[in-house]
């Protein structure tokens, strides 16, 4: 039983790398289900585990593919007795194959292997007494006992810790290691010896051994590849995601944009999940007469436990002013991406782009796809040297009247004003009118006052100034925004 459970735990690990959330409690449930269902019927087990472990249609889909990959070992013949098979996961798979396609388990590769080995094939004409191989691996290969071979390979795999494989290029290394652990050296020596001896039976045997060895190598490579897909592929992706979250946004290359976008959506989804739940608990408002009367019946109709009609929470009004000149454009891009992914909980986002003149791009982002909208924004506003003073003046004349005490203004930019007039008094005006003014600056704090940077003048007119140059920073800023706003 414990072996079965070990197998299951391994499987759960694979599921987790494939982005299926499995809690320990669910693992325990799966074990109970496994004890009940057993390994006998593959389809039945798959259905059962799928119900216990995967809880959305998407998860079910990835579960299916994981299950197929994990519980398959189609190269070798069926393995009948699972009780004395040690504790490796893949032995049980043989059992499945027996149930699902008994005729097939020797087909495909297995068939090729059979002819490669030529061991005991009836069609082969032998006019001399064939020799028996001496080395352990040789014996095993020619005995045709695939079950043994399979165990040996899996054991070797475990010994060299093939499940630690991380990158694709390690495949050769692990293949080699497994072959070595299986006793390749003995076999090689024997082949060498036989060829040296030179007699006909010897050369025949040497040829057979070589064929068998080549075939084995192919199988081991396949095995390693499978392990790679099982253990490394997804974790590699996770690793990349973690990295991308921390890297400076301006250093991102175009080919990473897709990944980053995915991450942004993931982060946004998380925030939506957290905050859409929280919203409900903040209620105060109109008296709900009906509910109050009903609830106070227990107090003989004395109304002292008042019930309120849950009131719709005022979502924060966000105005987002983004510098889209060359150096900062990438940051703006992801900030906007983030804000628009949050449409569900932040429906009132207005966005503005500028390098010198300010323009509103809210509509553009709502109506067109993100990439197109971004490209268009860059084209329309991206040229020209940055002029924060002009931007502030434009903002005052167009939008200041819309700013009220519920508005949060986010300004993203490096505050490098090319030695122009910073006009920080306008920012002060905004500061007085708005609920909050947040300045996000992609540059490190130390350079905020160096050269033409005007942060020193702007910072006192902001409620909050933050360094913001990676996805993690962005996430933190947006999460804060929601926390205060909701």
């Amino acid at each position, binding site marked *: 039983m414990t072996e079965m459970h070990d197998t299951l735990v391994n499987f759960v690990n694979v599921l987790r790398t494939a982005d299926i*959330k499995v*809690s320990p*409690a*669910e693992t325990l*449930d799966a074990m*109970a*289900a496994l004890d*009940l*269902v057993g390994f006998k019927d593959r*389809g*039945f087990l798959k*259905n*059962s585990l*799928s*119900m*216990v472990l*995967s*809880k*959305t*249609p998407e998860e*079910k889909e990835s579960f299916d593919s994981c299950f197929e990959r994990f519980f398959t070992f189609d190269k070798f013949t069926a393995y009948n007795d699972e009780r004395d098979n040690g504790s490796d996961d893949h032995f049980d798979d043989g059992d499945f194959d027996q149930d699902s396609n008994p005729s097939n388990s020797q087909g495909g590769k297995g068939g090729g292997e059979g002819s490669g080995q030529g061991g005991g094939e009836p069609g082969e004409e032998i006019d001399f007494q064939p020799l028996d191989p001496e080395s352990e691996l040789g014996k095993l290969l020619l005995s045709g006992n695939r079950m043994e071979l399979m165990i040996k390979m899996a054991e070797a795999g475990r010994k060299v810790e093939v499940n630690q494989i991380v990158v694709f290029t390690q495949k050769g290394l692990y293949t080699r290691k497994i072959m070595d652990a299986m006793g390749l050296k003995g076999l090689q020596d024997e082949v060498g010896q036989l060829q040296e001896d030179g007699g006909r039976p010897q050369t025949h045997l040497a040829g057979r051994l070589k064929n068998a060895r080549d075939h084995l190598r192919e199988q081991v490579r396949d095995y390693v590849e499978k392990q790679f897909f099982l253990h490394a592929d997804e974790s590699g992706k996770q690793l990349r995601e973690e990295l991308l979250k921390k890297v400076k946004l301006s250093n991102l290359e175009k080919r990473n944009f897709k990944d980053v976008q995915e991450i942004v959506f993931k982060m946004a989804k998380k925030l939506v*999940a957290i905050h859409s*739940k929280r919203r*409900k608990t903040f209620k105060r408002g109109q008296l709900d007469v009906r509910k109050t009367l009903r609830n106070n*019946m*227990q107090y*003989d109709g004395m109304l002292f436990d008042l019930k309120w009609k849950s009131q719709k929470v005022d979502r924060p009004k966000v105005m987002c002013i983004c510098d889209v000149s060359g150096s900062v454009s990438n940051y703006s891009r992801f900030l906007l991406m983030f804000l628009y992914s949050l449409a569900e909980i932040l429906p009132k986002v207005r966005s503005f782009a500028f390098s010198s003149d300010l323009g509103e791009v809210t509509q553009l982002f709502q109506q067109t796809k993100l990439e197109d909208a971004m490209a268009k924004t860059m084209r329309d506003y991206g040229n020209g040297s940055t002029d924060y003073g002009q931007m502030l003046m434009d903002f005052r004349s167009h939008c200041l009247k819309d700013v009220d005490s519920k508005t949060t203004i986010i300004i993203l930019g490096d505050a490098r004003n090319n030695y122009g007039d910073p006009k920080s008094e306008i920012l002060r005006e905004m500061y007085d009118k708005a609920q909050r003014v947040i300045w996000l600056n992609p540059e490190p704090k130390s350079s905020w006052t160096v050269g033409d940077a005007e942060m020193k003048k702007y910072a006192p007119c902001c409620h909050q100034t933050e360094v913001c140059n990676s996805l993690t920073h962005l996430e933190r800023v947006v999460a804060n925004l929601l926390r205060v706003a909701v």
Partner: protein
Amino acid sequence: MAIKNEHRLKDVETIKDNFETFDYICSMEIATAVFLAYHLEKPVLIEGPPGVGKTELAKTTADMLDLPCIRLQCYEGLDESKAIYEWKYGKQLLYTQVLKETLGDILDGAKGLTESVAKLHEFGDIFFSEDFLEPRPLLKALKAEESCVLLIDEVDKSDHEFESLLLEMLSDYQLSIPEIGTIKAIPDKKPLVFLTSNNTREISDALKRRCLHLYIPFPDADLETRIVKARVPDIPPRLNQQLVTFIQELREMDLKKVPAISETIDWARALILLHTESLEPELVRQTLNVILKFQEDVETVQAELQGVTNRAVKAS
């Protein structure tokens, strides 16, 4: 667990066969879910598009096991006084009025306030005992002596708070009532719980974790033919096949609401009433409103009606 007709849940095949005798044709997954739910004592959360027989599954299970089916229909604003229990306020008031006179006798001879109160204490909280408790569906299900099937329908329509309220019930089969204590299900007679959801909002992870998750998709053509056959026994096999092929193709189209199994069955019944032998475009046009519930869908389908009908007829 030991409940009535337990042998009907012996294994998956048996469950499937038994469901069929009750005209509920199910896939292996569904039978597996019921099997696991019973043997692991876990609730089942059923998701899937509307009209694929989620609620029906719970009802049929109750029929099959010959157990009562207690149903809790969820809606926004559902709270514990509707779902778990409520005190019978009226009865409490009435009793206090009636008992006023007796009070004098009880306190007879007591001197001073302290003594009186001490004397009253001897009677305990009679007004907050089970006699004054009005059990609502969840509590009823726990106290069912012969076990029962509890159907919590459309749990996605309820509030988040209510979901949390369910957790205790779902994981431990118990409910806590502050005035009385914890009420547990009778051992071996735990209710078989089904929750259904139409996925109008995401169910919380905490709830999902405590449940088996069953997703019922639209059935494939073969299964659907059998379902129609079971539900509408009079249907000629040829018409049945045409009808199912037609519906299956509709599901591929871009519609606002695709027809579900319940609509297929309704349509089959309608066609039988009209003494139909085989699908014809004109007839389909007239009865289209049985399977499509939006005018724009009807218009979309009408444009391609001829082709789809012909294909369906040819396929049989």
